[in-house]
């Protein structure tokens, strides 16, 4: 019986070794995300320079307090994510799991705030092809179109991040992520932090630039 187990151990050990490769792979994926959102930021900038007044007026209709609250929520979730990795590096699995659970919960808080924010806008008919938005000038239609596209795409990334981090929580509980093998948690953390960085840019563009 001992030989197959030893074989599995040796195999797993060989897999662990390429941390550098795993990390570079994750970063390459993050670059595609940066280019994806970067393209949308360029689109936003192009239309903003074409319709500065409409973007200004439409932007002042967004609830900036909710935007700032969500920024604090996401920054704090990034902190708990980073601390969770330090905890697992120090061999403190319970603390790492607790911090990871906090991160996922803060993601849910973010989405809840976002839900109420969107619902208010939709209730007022301010959604793509909505009755109120159709009466507005083209620049404001573009602003709200970009607002729903970009915050919506970002929201999908938050959901994806929460799913990935929940899987990491299970792997931690099962001992598949541990002090000597935590690259999965690190890469999941990189994704979560990038989602945070994208929000850092969305805040001033949509909520504060009015």
């Amino acid at each position: 019986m001992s030989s197959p187990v030893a074989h599995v151990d040796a195999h797993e050990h060989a897999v662990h070794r390429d941390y550098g490769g795993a990390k570079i792979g994750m970063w390459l994926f993050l670059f595609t995300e940066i280019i994806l959102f970067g393209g949308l930021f360029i689109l936003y900038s192009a239309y903003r320079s074409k319709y500065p007044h409409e973007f200004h007026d439409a932007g002042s209709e967004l609830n900036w307090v909710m935007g700032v609250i969500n920024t604090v929520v996401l920054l704090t979730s990034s902190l708990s994510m980073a601390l969770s990795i330090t905890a697992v590096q120090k061999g403190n699995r319970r603390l790492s799991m607790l911090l990871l659970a906090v991160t996922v919960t803060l993601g849910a808080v973010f989405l809840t705030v976002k839900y109420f924010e969107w619902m208010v806008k939709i209730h007022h008919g301010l959604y793509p092809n909505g009755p109120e938005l159709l009466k507005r000038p083209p620049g404001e239609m573009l602003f709200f179109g970009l607002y729903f596209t970009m915050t919506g795409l970002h929201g999908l990334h938050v959901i994806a991040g929460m799913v990935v981090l929940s899987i990491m929580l299970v792997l931690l509980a099962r001992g598949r992520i541990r002090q000597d093998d935590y690259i999965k948690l690190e890469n999941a953390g990189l994704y979560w932090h990038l989602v945070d960085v994208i929000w850092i840019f969305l805040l001033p563009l949509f909520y504060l630039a009015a």
Partner: protein
Amino acid sequence: MNQLAIEEEHGHVVPYATFVTVWAILLVLTMILTLVSKVFHEALSVWAMLIITPLKAGLVFYYFMHLKFEGPLLKAMVFVALSTLVVFIGMLFLDSSIQ
């Protein structure tokens, strides 16, 4: 693989206090950005946005995403990717300023 080799591959363990400090700085920067945008002059708020927002993103990249502790290859890759984006944004502004 001995402990030293593991540490070399993983980069070193960042203390809890470092992350908490970075988080506190990020919150202060967010507060400044919000105050400048909502209380002070609009021209000032554009400058605050252009300086503070990349600074915040840089702090997340450098500390939370461990870039500070990565090797030159990964740093160079990130630099090239971000530079590409900056070049395109620069080209956009150049284009829109000429029109």
